[in-house]
Structures are given as C-alpha cells and as structure tokens.
C-alpha cells in the first residue's frame, strides 16, 4: 500500500540520518588541528634564499613577472654597470595573485615558490603587498629541492671569474625554453635536465626584451 511504502521510505531516511548521528565527526578542528597540506599545495608566494648564503636566489630575470597572469608580481632589476641585474624591487601583491603557480613554474632559479602556508588574513589591505624583505622572510625556512645545482655554482662563480660575460650564462639558464615541465616536475628531475639546454634562442629573445624594458 502506498501509505505504508511511503512510511517505510520515510523511516528509512530517518535511519540513514540516525545512523550518522552515532558516527564520529569528520571535522578538522581548525586552529587546534590542521590539515596537512600536501606537497606542492599552492599557498602564498615566497622568495627562496640560498640555503647556505642566505641570499635570495632570484636573479631578477623577470620571467615570473611575465608569466604572471594577474600582474601580481612587480619587480625591478636594472642592470648595473657590470651588466649584472641587481634586484631592486620585488613586490608581490597577494590581493592580485590568483595562486596559479605559473611564476613558480617559470622560474629557473628556484627563486620563487608557492609555499603551503595560507594564514595571512590582515586588517589592512596594504599589508597584503609584500615587498622583498617580507617575501624573503616568509621564504626563510621553506624547504625546497635545489634544482639549479649545475647553474648555481656558475652564477656564483661567474661574477668572480668574468663579470662582463654574465649575460650569456644567465640567458642560458633563463630560457630552458619550453622547459616548463622542468620546474614543475621538480621532484622527479630526470626528463628536464636534458631539455633545458635545448633551446637557448627563445629565452634569449625574451631576456633581452625584458632587459630592454627594464
């Protein structure tokens, strides 16, 4: 009979909710317990520093600025007299950033990273514009795999050895061309290592362009 069937269904529904009533909640009680952010979660943008020297890895190449779809990154790295870029300003506007991770992927110097931190609510929106110092400080103890091992020594050495020439190597470093996957697949590194030297040409263009602008 319809009535009884309906009644049965209604009771069944209650059964389901009743069943859950006895179960334990799945809630994560936020401030006390926290969700462990998986590797590679895209939280705030930070600038990484060299683990040894404590200096910023960023070379001011401007690739991330160009890759950023929202214009959140504003950097200024004019070339000094020695043709070497000096990072003057590196500002990330967290209000504009859409946490897409493109900057991290575009950077070949392990200089910018999306950290897993996310607690950054502020009372004043101006505090969301992070300058270099803040970015560096945030990135202080961020753990990262240094993928630029081969290049780093070069970068480090070059100024010492031959300051005038450093435009070149940098270019080579900058442009792994389509080596985007390189940065992405940071953990499993094999495929990109060979790729990066492949296409210097394009990166070169880009670099000079940006250089010109700056």
């Amino acid at each position, binding site marked *: 009979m319809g009535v009884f069937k309906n009644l049965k269904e209604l009771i069944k529904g209650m059964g389901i909710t009743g069943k859950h009533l006895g179960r334990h909640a799945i809630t994560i009680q936020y401030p006390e317990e926290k969700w462990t952010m998986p590797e590679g979660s895209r939280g705030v943008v930070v600038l990484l520093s060299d683990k040894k020297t404590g200096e910023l890895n960023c070379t001011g190449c*401007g690739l991330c*600025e*160009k890759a950023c779809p929202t*214009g959140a990154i504003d950097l200024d790295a004019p070339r000094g007299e020695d043709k070497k870029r000096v990072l003057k300003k590196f500002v990330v506007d967290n209000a504009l950033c859409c946490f897409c991770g493109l900057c991290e992927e575009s950077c070949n110097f392990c200089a910018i990273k999306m950290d897993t931190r996310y607690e950054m609510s502020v009372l004043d929106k101006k505090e969301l514009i992070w300058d270099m110092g803040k970015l560096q400080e945030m990135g202080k103890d961020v753990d990262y795999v240094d993928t630029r091992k081969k290049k780093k020594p070069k970068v480090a050495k070059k100024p010492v050895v031959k300051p005038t020439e450093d435009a070149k190597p940098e270019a080579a470093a900058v442009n792994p061309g389509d080596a985007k996957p390189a940065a992405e697949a940071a953990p499993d590194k094999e495929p990109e290592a060979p790729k990066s030297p492949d296409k210097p040409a394009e990166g070169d263009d880009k670099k000079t362009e*940006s250089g010109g*602008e700056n």
Partner: protein
Amino acid sequence: MTKEELRSYIDSTFGSQLKALDTGRHDPMYEIEPQNLVKTCQALCDDEKVKFNFLCNISAVDTTEKFEVVYSIASLPNKLRLDFKFSLPYENAEIDSVQEVWSGANWHEREIWELYGINIRNHDNLTRFLLPDDWDQGFPMRKDWDAPDFIRLPEK
C-alpha cells in the same frame, strides 16, 4: 557522416551559400553572405541529411578592421559540427537575428549587441543585460575601447 563527407555534402548542396575557408581548425569552417544568414541557417537546420538543429555558440570578433560573427552549430541526431562566419564593416554593423531558427540565439545575439554594438535586426528583446544598468561607456569588447577607470595589464 565523417568530416570529409560532410565537407563534400555541404559543397554539393549548399555550395552557393557556404564557401569553405581554410582558417578553421578541427571542424569545417565556411563563409556566408550576411544577407543570406537566416535563409542559410534555416536550410542547414531543415536539411534532412545534416539537420543542424543545435546552436552551440555565436561569437563576434573584433579584428580591429572589421567585425566577424562566427556561428558554431551542431547536429544532434547526425552528430556533426560546423562553423560558419561572415564579416561586417566596422561602422553600422547590423545582422539578422537567427532566433526563429534556433531560439537559443537570443541571448548570444543580445550579448553581441551589448558588448560589440552590432545591431541585431528582428530581435525581440534587445535590452541591456550583462553590463550595469547605468552603463554608458560604449561597447567594451571592441578592441579600441577604453574608459577612464580601465586599467590595462602593464606590458612586461
């Protein structure tokens, strides 16, 4: 019907109205005469062999010299896809409404009217709908459009 068959069928049946273009990727692309628009659409929709009864999309394009209006249509029963388009002059652009063929064209056309300023003839409800009610800054999707509070992404 495969794409090739579709191409040849269109050529043979609608050859006078639809001229194949080579800019289309993946799906066949044709060019038509704007004044034949409704007729052509009706024919495409009614033709038993193809029966393009589903309008996917209409989009206007501003190439800075002219407008193009692109219609993407599909046939549900025959599982076909086809695009066609035509160009319009930049000034006084006007097209016919294809509402009577595909009712769904209504909003697409309204949008074109609102954002590009292409007038739609025989449209039953050309009123503002995406932009704020008090919008008075012209047709924002045009390439040359600008407004005082419009901030462009700085060139990097």
